[in-house]
Each structure stands twice: as structure tokens, then as C-alpha cells.
């Protein structure tokens, strides 16, 4: 399930609901991404996030389908905030349930790598020193490349 949210959400409550509907799954992995208040040498006051309505959701749906093709997992939950966020607020929450934990861990890891580098979101930090649009770190690009290397191996 994909949800783009313009208002804050409570990851704990979302996990409770997801877990109650997880049927006979033995493993549930969740990832929560939050706004950090302190970046290198600056203090973030607001993180602004935008997306491409309709298109972002559709591509996330395709990402979920791809994950379900790669691992034996149930339908994942992806919640992503847009709008103005304050430090400490949840940005993204991903839940994956599966019979076994390896599948749940890997699929959650995979979904996050793609969310960081391919999903249609843009974010701007508004700091004490001004504004700047964020781009993925080199680390994010090498993280997502792992999944292609694995394809080649197999």
C-alpha cells in the first residue's frame, strides 16, 4: 500500500495496524526515516518535500510489485510525507512482512535504497544559513547499485 501524506503520521500506530493485518507472517521489518535537526555545520528548521502527484504513487506501486517479485513477502506499506516537516518528524515509513526474516530485511533495505535514489520526491533544507535542495549522497547511489550487482551474480 502506498500513501503520500501531507500531514504528520505516527509510525508506531501504523506498525500496530500493519502487524495486526500481517496474517501468519513470522517477520515484520520496518524502516523509519526522520528529519534530522543538525546537519554539517547548520541547523535545519524546516525540511520541505514535494512529489509529482499521481506519477510518484504509480512508480512506487511498480516498485512494490518488483520487490514482491524478488522476495517472498506480503504487500508492503510505504508512507511518505510531503510538505513542510520539522526536525524529528517522520519522513518515510516502510513495513515489510514475510514468512522468514531474510526476505523481510532485504526487501525493506531494497525499498529504501530505491526510495532514496529513484522515487519522485525532492527535498529542500531550510536552515539558519539559507535554503538548499538535497541530492542523494554517493553512498546512496552505491547502496542502490548493490541490487543490480546481485542480479548479475545470479
Amino acid at each position: 500500500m502506498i500513501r503520500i501524506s501531507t500531514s504528520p503520521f505516527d509510525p508506531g500506530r501504523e506498525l500496530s495496524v500493519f502487524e495486526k493485518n500481517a496474517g501468519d507472517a513470522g517477520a515484520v521489518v520496518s524502516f523509519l526515516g526522520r528529519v534530522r535537526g543538525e546537519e554539517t555545520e547548520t541547523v535545519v528548521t524546516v525540511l520541505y518535500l514535494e512529489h509529482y502527484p499521481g506519477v510518484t504513487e504509480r512508480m512506487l506501486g511498480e516498485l512494490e510489485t518488483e520487490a514482491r517479485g524478488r522476495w517472498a513477502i506480503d504487500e508492503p506499506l510505504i508512507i511518505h510525507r510531503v510538505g513542510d516537516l520539522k526536525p524529528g518528524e517522520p519522513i518515510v515509513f516502510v513495513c515489510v512482512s514475510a514468512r522468514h526474516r531474510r526476505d523481510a530485511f532485504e526487501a525493506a533495505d531494497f525499498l529504501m535504497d530505491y526510495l532514496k535514489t529513484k522515487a519522485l520526491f525532492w527535498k529542500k533544507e531550510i536552515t539558519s544559513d539559507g535554503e538548499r535542495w538535497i541530492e542523494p549522497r554517493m553512498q546512496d547511489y552505491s547502496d542502490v547499485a548493490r541490487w543490480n550487482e546481485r542480479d548479475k551474480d545470479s
Partner: protein
Amino acid sequence: MARILFFGRLADLAGGRERELHVGDSVRNLRELVDLIAKGDDTLGAALREKSVQTIINERISSGDAISDSDEIAFLPPVSGG
């Protein structure tokens, strides 16, 4: 009128996220569309031509680069979700 969408820093440069543009006979593809936009704004034109900028026509990636007056064209700088 074609509908042009700018995201992220491109929206800041364009002074808005959306623009309606008459695409006449002189604009048949993406390159010519960018040339048209660049006429009025060198800085924005240069930003749109950056290699890292992706384009989506009518909500589909890689649906060719032909442009007509009924299209929605979105310019996307590098994404940063999560």
C-alpha cells in the same frame, strides 16, 4: 497549450512549478521546447539542459521526445526521497 511542470530547484529557477506554453510548429521535440524556454531565461535553459535532468512526457518515462500542444512535460532534477 502544453503544460510544463518544474520540480525541485527547477521550480525555484522557473519561478513556479507550472507553466502553460503554446507549442507551435516550430517546437516538435524536447530539444526545441527547451530552446524555446531558454529564449526567455538563459539560467533556466542551462539548468534544463543539465545531464542529470530527466523528462517525463504525459506521465510516462521514455515515451519518445515528440511534443504537441496537448502534452504535459515534466522536468525533474535529481530526486531525493526517503
